[in-house]
């Protein structure tokens, strides 16, 4: 009995919340707007709490690795020390202070930029190996498209051919957009179907 009541409360809450947010897009009524704003504010508070729970979970997982002396626990030590320092600097002097900026400029930006640099090397080698592993017409098309995009972007005097720039523009405006739009349409249809299922109570992910 309690289970049935609990289910009705959960389904009712989800449907009402979803309908209020959805109606807010179509009907401009002060009551709906206020309810929508309150619900959305709750949602972002929950999202922020989820972020904090994620951080706590990260700390617990890595603390366990250190206590259990698992392999690679030195990285967990580095993570915990870095986390503590960053958190303390942020809490004491603020997220936009000189200390936070120093950490950001001298640790995070160089590391993430270096990772993208490594990605460039890996992608170049991947493109080269593609023709060796799969010497098909599609691989050739992929390779030619990559070269046109790269060379059509730059303005080196001795390869600054106007058709390269036009070809790059055509590739990015027609086939790329067509393919991406196709994927997006699929995503949109899936999202609408999932949203409707939640709204009518056919799908209840919050019960798990």
């Amino acid at each position, binding site marked *: 009995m309690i289970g049935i009541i609990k289910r009705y409360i959960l389904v009712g809450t989800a449907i009402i919340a979803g309908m209020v947010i959805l109606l807010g897009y179509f009907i401009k009524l002060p009551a709906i707007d206020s309810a929508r704003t309150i619900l959305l*504010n709750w949602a972002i508070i929950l999202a922020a709490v989820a972020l904090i729970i994620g951080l706590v979970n990260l700390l617990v997982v890595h603390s366990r690795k250190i206590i259990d002396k698992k392999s690679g626990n030195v990285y967990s030590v580095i993570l915990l020390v870095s986390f503590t320092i960053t958190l303390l600097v942020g809490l004491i002097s603020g*997220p936009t202070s000189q200390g936070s900026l120093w950490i950001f400029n001298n640790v995070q930006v160089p590391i993430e930029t270096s990772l993208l640099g490594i990605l460039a*090397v890996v992608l170049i*080698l991947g493109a080269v190996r593609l*023709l060796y592993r799969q010497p098909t017409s599609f691989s050739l098309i992929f390779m030619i498209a990559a*070269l046109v995009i790269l*060379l059509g972007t730059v*303005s080196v005097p001795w390869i600054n051919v106007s058709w390269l720039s036009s070809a790059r523009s055509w590739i990015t405006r027609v086939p790329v957009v067509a393919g991406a739009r196709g994927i997006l349409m699929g995503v949109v249809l899936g999202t609408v179907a999932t949203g409707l299922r939640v709204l009518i109570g056919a799908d209840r992910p919050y019960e798990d």
Partner: protein
Amino acid sequence: MSEVQCSHCGKENPPDLEICQHCQSPLVAPQQPEELADVPPEGPLSELTGIIPIESAVNEITIPKPYSVKVRVSESQRANVRLLENLTKEGVRPPSRERAPGVTIQQALRILTAMALILAISWGIIFDTPSFQLPSADARISEFSEHIITLPESAPVLLAFEYEPGFSSELEPSMTIILDQLLSRGAYPVLVSTTPTGVVQGQRAIGLLNQKAGRVYEAPSDYINLGYIPGGATGLNSFNAGIRSTFPLEANGNQVWALPPLQNVNSLSDFNLVIVFTDSTETARSWIEQVGTDLQDTPLLMVASAQAEPLINPYYNSDPRQVDGLIAGLAGGAAYETYTGGMEVSRPLWGAFNMSVVVAAGLILFGGLVSVIGAAYKSESNGPSGH
């Protein structure tokens, strides 16, 4: 426990299976002697062990269930069942590779590629390369600039910093010029972000401008950093629905809405301009869908990474426009610099960018040719059958 033999095909099966993994027929496990050694709960033989419980045994004698229907399973389905069983039993183990001593060909290629790129970038940075002309501006860039130069004094402008730190060098040249244009015209930038690093990213941008322009722009007199909006698209929706309730305070906990440039700002459409700096199509789409639809006459401008450009461009080309101006990638930043004649921030990077792109293209072309020849040679040496 011992293996269970299937009565249908006669093959051995693990004891915990109920269906034969070879022919999918139901398996009947041999009855264990312990099952008969129940202790009678009542009667004259109660609490005695090692006896056969006659009543329950008699009650359990029933007509056997007719397992006559054989599950129709194709060979591919059996293979999938076996695959699933193997996965759930043993887990996935990565194939162990024995590493050859010394540097392998792959490692050597990676090192050579990295060195070629580093050399190209260094050449572009160290030596002045005026031969690499900055690209010319297109309509998207001229319209972008038009929206900025027509701003009134003390106009509140919303700036969203929605990119990861790795994309800083691609977006910062155009961002520095835009910030300089805004602040030198007396506009009042309001910084926000839906990414946790965006709060610091915005502060870094102001710091870079102060350093390059030799000025001291400070919060809250020249700009304000509202901070992080959690919740992605939902957070943006909430921000759009109630800007003051979402941000009662700024990032460092100070009051915001009493500041003179923001006193009349009650919704996002009260800003004179909204500019989004992003490296991701998803974030751009969230801003266009969650915020752009309610902006009314306020223009929405985008400064995007080159990787996000193809999917943002249709929003610029739509009628009516959903994006009113677009600067894409380092090339777009360089074109914007040419068009506005502002600070030289793209020029030092443009040569290095060009050199590295040409070297990357050369490596792909050369490596691709070698690969095609190598693949042709391999297939020839394997014989006409290709085996």
